[in-house]
């Protein structure tokens, strides 16, 4: 394993220390339990927005703490959801009396730990609403399974919902908006190779030199199928087809197209993919009105990408465009 780390056991704490040092104007970092909180929090009367999950997906979530997005993030160990302790501490730290929204990616561990924390917070008098994001169309959903994973849609939900909380919407409205974003977003990812979890010390899976994994999870969980490597345009079509079909997205829809790098993909390749994705959507009459291209929800150094498509309405557009100032996403101030 080749990584720029000191000790796998300390990598999260050391990275958070670096985050605090580099962005002390925006966030402060608490260690043991680990959480990152906006320097502006808590703000009296503002709904606190908290997310979290295993580390290794940076900049998600800690890189999105700041003005107009998250009030706090709870980074667990690499690829392992945080325990209730930091979630509870973060929830209390950002409560300004208007309650706190938990944005939870749909993984059994995340859901269970956030649930426990929310119960504990309620017992201490902090009102919590939780919205579970489950936008990954690679996974078959049913009552009898763990359901779909939360992936790229989480980034969009955090931005849009964070802006709503920033302008003063109440907890019920913010939670309803978050559900609306989740109901209108679909994602699908792929990988050219595995990532390597620091504490595991070797790649999570092996792919042949001409294979790729379609429907990969952001933890390097194997995907829907393993197929021969294809040109970028064919990969884009392979990801877009189930996304468009699932929602379904239809001619006339206004959308936000998000092409996300998994961590080890050159920006050049993401733009190659973006070019084709927008073209394919245009052919179907789907209008791309906002876009995001880059590494925002990653799997350590995994080479690969995901595509996320969000159906926009006027309010979502306004909130997407609203100012945001976090370590990883910034505009308008």
């Amino acid at each position, binding site marked *: 394993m080749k990584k720029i780390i000191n000790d796998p056991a300390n990598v999260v704490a050391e990275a958070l220390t670096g985050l605090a040092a580099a962005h002390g104007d925006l966030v402060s970092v608490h260690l043991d339990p680990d959480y990152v909180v906006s320097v502006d929090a808590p703000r009296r009367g503002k709904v606190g927005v908290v997310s979290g999950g295993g580390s290794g997906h940076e900049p998600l979530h800690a890189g999105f703490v700041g003005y107009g997005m998250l009030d706090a993030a709870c980074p667990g160990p690499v690829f*392992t*959801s945080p325990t*209730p302790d930091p979630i509870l501490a973060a929830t209390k730290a950002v409560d300004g009396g208007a309650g706190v929204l938990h944005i939870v990616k749909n993984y059994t561990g995340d859901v269970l730990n956030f649930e426990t924390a929310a119960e504990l917070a309620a017992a201490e008098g902090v009102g919590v609403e939780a919205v579970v994001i489950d936008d990954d169309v690679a996974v078959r959903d049913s009552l009898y*399974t763990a359901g779909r994973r939360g992936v790229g849609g989480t980034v969009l939900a955090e931005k849009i919902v964070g802006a709503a909380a920033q302008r003063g919407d109440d907890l019920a409205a913010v939670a309803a908006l978050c559900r609306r974003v989740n109901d209108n977003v679909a994602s699908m990812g792929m990988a050219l190779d595995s990532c390597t979890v620091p504490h595991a010390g070797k790649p*999570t899976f092996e792919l042949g030199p001409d294979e790729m994994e379609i429907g990969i*999870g952001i933890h390097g969980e194997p995907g829907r199928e393993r197929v021969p490597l294809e040109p970028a345009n064919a990969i884009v079509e392979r990801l877009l087809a189930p996304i468009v079909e699932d929602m379904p997205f239809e001619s006339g829809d206004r959308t936000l197209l998000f092409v996300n790098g998994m961590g080890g993909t050159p920006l050049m390749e993401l733009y190659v993919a973006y070019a084709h994705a927008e073209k394919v959507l245009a052919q179907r009459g789907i209008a791309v009105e906002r876009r995001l291209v880059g590494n925002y929800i990653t799997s350590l150094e995994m080479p690969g990408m995901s595509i996320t498509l969000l159906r926009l309405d006027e309010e979502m557009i306004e909130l997407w465009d609203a100012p945001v100032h976090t370590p990883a996403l910034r505009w308008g101030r």
Partner: protein
Amino acid sequence: MPSDDLPMTTRDLLRVIADYAAVVAANRTYLIELDAAIGDADHGENLDRGMKAALDRLAEADPGTPADVLQTVATALISKVGGAAGPLYGTAFLRAATSVRGRGELGAADLVGALRAGLGGVVARGKAEVGDKTMVDAWDPAVQAAEQVVTAGGSTREALTAAADAAEEGMRATIPMIARKGRASYLGERSAGHQDPGATSSALLFRVFADVADHSS
């Protein structure tokens, strides 16, 4: 009660926890590898971190009763493991603790009651059924086997040995299953052919219980 059936004391239970922590540490890589195949390669790391924390807290807390031991382990797991396994194992230990609150030592009936309560905790939190390819596939047959032995008048040692055997069988039975809960469920049919990591760590736990009962009897 058969002549070889000594009750399980607080000391015995501490020994179970210490031995299990050692077994998890020894199987850390193995559990990581099982999880890499159908999950995210952290189950061994998670449990190892949790059991080390449990040992630390037990050393500090110096618990006086079996329930105290179980409760201390529960809170250590809940606040240190994270992921799916943290709340699931944590709740199991928590409910087990509650079920034996007030007891100074645990007879066969107490023990199977605690195991039943633990299983109830796992199911309450995780909503998995037998056949979903989770730790429930080890726990459920283990608890049933132990109950049968005790109902038939068997000893703690016999009950726990039957539980351990059944857990291992249940663990192996997860291999062909298609996962319907937890991270492995994302794989659909591709999850078949791999042994579930949580069922494996559970089988290891039941075996430690049986071994300690064996030695202390």
